[in-house]
């Protein structure tokens, strides 16, 4: 049931019919249905007034997801493109991310810097992100800047200028970003080694920011090809959350995007990673005082039925100060300063990556042995009902916390739509978590926490004398 005051589904269909009359094929707009989006969707104590995400689509394939919330006179507009570093090939890694930078540059209608200037003048804040499966552009704006923002978004989707000086300069910026986030950053550098070692075939093995030599090698033609291939209305979803309505939004979208033609998207050429049959172990030295261990177990795709129980298992192992790994390694044995783990949330099978920061003087082998002991206990069935309940409570809390700002909600809608085609997936996942049992956790522990199918990167302190004194 829609929230009080929101239009009925019939009213949205009627609106789309009226807006499509007399319009060209690409500019026609269709209402494709709504899904509940909100905590009350799964909470027994809710008032019943569940917000909804309404989905619309232009004739050229552009999807529009709208979640109305008039609590403050602000909006979040995000454009999600279903292209990320997964779609890159060897020798051209980093193009999706470099291109994200270039999208803030010159267009045929706006000179270099004008996009940022116009947005800031309007009080808007903008940014973008690229990852393995997607790229998205984000703007927080006062509600009266909606038309401006959409005009700028549509403009750079069609009229971007890709010339040599601009590409050269942005490559410099990206190389500096790489130095900051990877080359001079311990976590960044180790994560890159972990994924590169774990994936022989699948493109998840190369870094989203790209290898330095690939970044250096890009020419404007690479960028133009990428732009022409992936930046098309039928490869994009416009997510709008905040103080507006379909009646206000859709005519602007039609006016700005309705003349664009769809493109023919290439068939994806990625190959699945073959099964791993033996542990991979890499050792590197870095200027640091204590050992670190990065471990990558194979994990299922985000849409897999095992993903939720494995995420709960991740909470049992790493979720806060009462988790198994923290209690054992940080608190009791005092061999680590920090432990964390994250079950990859990607379109295809990826890694459950775990990070252990050792204390000064602790040997990597000792840290790993202790970690393996607790994994063995979990595989042996040691998880208690209370641990499962704690994991469920943590997931519920983090789901709620992800709904606080319009930007967080837009990101949730956009991310789950881009990866799963289900903007309401957080609530479906929460419902699935509530049904999970200890048997589910034991099953996924035995299926995924498999030593012969994991990758380990150990970081050792550089020998004294090599480190700056």
């Amino acid at each position: 049931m829609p929230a009080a005051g929101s239009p009925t589904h019939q009213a949205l269909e009627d609106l789309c019919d009226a807006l499509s009359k007399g319009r060209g094929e690409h500019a026609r707009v269709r209402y494709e249905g709504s899904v509940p989006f909100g905590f009350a969707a799964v909470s027994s104590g809710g008032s019943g007034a569940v917000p909804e995400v309404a989905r619309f689509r232009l004739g050229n394939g552009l999807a529009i997801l709208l979640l109305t919330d008039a609590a403050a006179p602000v909006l979040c507009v995000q454009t999600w493109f279903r292209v990320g570093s997964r779609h890159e090939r060897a020798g051209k890694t980093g193009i999706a991310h470099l291109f994200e930078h270039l999208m803030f540059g010159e267009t045929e209608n706006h000179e270099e810097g004008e996009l940022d200037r116009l947005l800031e003048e309007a009080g808007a804040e903008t940014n973008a992100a690229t990852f393995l499966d997607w790229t998205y552009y984000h703007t927080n704006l006062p509600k009266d800047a909606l038309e401006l923002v959409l005009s700028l978004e549509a403009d750079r989707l069609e009229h971007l200028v890709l010339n040599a000086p601009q590409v050269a300069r942005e490559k410099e910026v990206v190389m500096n970003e790489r130095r900051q986030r990877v080359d001079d950053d311990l976590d960044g550098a180790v994560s890159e080694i972990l994924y590169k070692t774990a994936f022989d075939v699948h493109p998840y093995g190369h870094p989203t920011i790209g290898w330095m030599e690939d970044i250096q090698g890009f020419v404007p033609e690479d960028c133009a090809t990428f732009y022409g291939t992936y930046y098309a209305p039928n490869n994009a979803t416009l997510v709008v959350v905040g103080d507006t309505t379909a009646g206000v939004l859709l005519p602007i979208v039609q006016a700005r995007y309705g003349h664009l033609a769809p493109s023919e998207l290439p068939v994806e050429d990625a190959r699945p990673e073959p099964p791993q049959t033996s542990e991979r172990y890499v050792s590197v030295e870095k200027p640091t005082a204590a050992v670190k261990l990065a471990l990558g177990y194979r994990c299922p795709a985000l849409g897999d039925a095992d993903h939720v129980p494995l995420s709960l298992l991740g909470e049992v192992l790493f979720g806060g100060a009462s988790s198994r790994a923290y209690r054992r390694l940080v608190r009791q044995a005092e061999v680590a300063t920090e432990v964390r783990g994250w079950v990859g949330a990607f379109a295809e099978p990826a890694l459950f990556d775990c990070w252990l920061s050792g204390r000064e003087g602790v040997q990597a082998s000792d840290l790993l042995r202790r970690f393996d002991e607790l994994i063995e206990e979990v595989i042996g069935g040691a998880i208690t009902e209370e641990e499962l309940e704690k994991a469920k409570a943590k997931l519920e809390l983090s789901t709620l916390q992800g709904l606080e700002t319009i930007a967080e909600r837009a990101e949730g809608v956009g991310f789950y739509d881009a990866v799963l085609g289900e903007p309401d997936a957080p609530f479906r996942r929460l419902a699935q978590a509530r049904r999970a049992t200890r048997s589910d956790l034991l099953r996924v522990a035995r299926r995924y926490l498999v030593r012969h199918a994991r990758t380990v990167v150990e970081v050792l302190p550089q020998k004294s004398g090599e480190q700056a004194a």
Partner: protein
Amino acid sequence: MTTVLVETSDALPLVSVAIAFRGGAACDPPGQEGAARLCARMLRRGAGAWSADQIEDRLDLLGGELSASASLSASTLHFEVILRSLEPFADLVATLLAEPRFEPSELGRLCRKTQAEIVESRDSDRSLASRAFRMELFGDHPYGRRIAGSIASLPSIRATDLRRFFQEHYRRDEAVVAVSGPLSVSAAEALAERLLSGLPASAEGRAPTADLVPEPTMKPGKRLVIVEKAERSQTQLVVGSLGTSAHDPDHVPLLVGNTALGGTFTSRLMNEVRVQRGWSYGASSSLSLDRRREAFSMWTAPAEADAGPCLELELRLLSELRRDGVDDDELAFVKGYLVRSHAFDIDTPKKRVLQRLEEKVFDLPEGYFARYLERVGAVTRDETNAAVAKRLPDGDLVVAVVGSHETLEAPLVAAMGGDVTVKRLPIDFE
């Protein structure tokens, strides 16, 4: 009496509560640097009948998150909990405040962990640069100390010291409570009363915490600090001086001037350093805010070979801003940005109530946030230009970098125009 601030909202079944006491790391006793933070972190490591492990189990089982930490000027407990668990969660937090155990064995464990965290923080170049900059800028003033303490100071802190710190600073007349979520004002006030019920109203014979920390002063001259670290492909570069106090008559004009310099994506720094030259991924300037005058700083991260030219450029931009000021167009642009983007500082109940908390805890002028838009709107070009000329650094400044002195020192000294006091620090400097 305790100030209780409330923002009622039914948007989510989530309650957020911050309890701030106005004494933080700046009140650490001499030789016991790190005491405020240890004290806050010890609260969840044993209270009343609850052991540390039992507390952590309980917090997680109830679907809540609790942080207890210290900043320079405050010790703060912040929790968020699912509405249905608010009652038992609040009972537990009230117990943590009423009956902290400060057990020596737990203190020893926390002390060793904190020392290990200090060692680990050396992995972050940004954290090293920040620490070196603040230590050089503030010198012996409490704002120059590391909130976590030092490897040497931590073991000297005893459980009795923490108990004393707790008794002096965790008191109701120095507390501010901020509540947001689906609670009425009266329910939130009753909640605050319950949370603080085990604490004394005041500490006999103690001066108000705000009087304990003096104004920092700026040492004259140009100073360069290099933290030696191997294998850097770029350097974290921070440049700055003393900045602003919220009580300065030119405080808001200075905020406006700083926004033009490095506060937006189209600011002078970003445009010149990143857009025109590609020298650094980030380029920004900021004015920190606290009870006393805090730092002004500019941040970039150029490749090692670009560090000298980048610093020279930053100092030229600074001097041009001081000399020529902003013009009418730039002023209008910056003011427009600050006024319109302000909507995102206050678009959730939690943000609104934490802003009010900040005003109280840091003793900002009454109505600092409520009158913010009006004050920004009223700033003139002359006021802005006078503020940047007076407050932004000219000759007296501090530069801190992380990398190798062999490659960095000469170009950075040259960029600063010579006559520079240079200090080299090992990576494990305290």
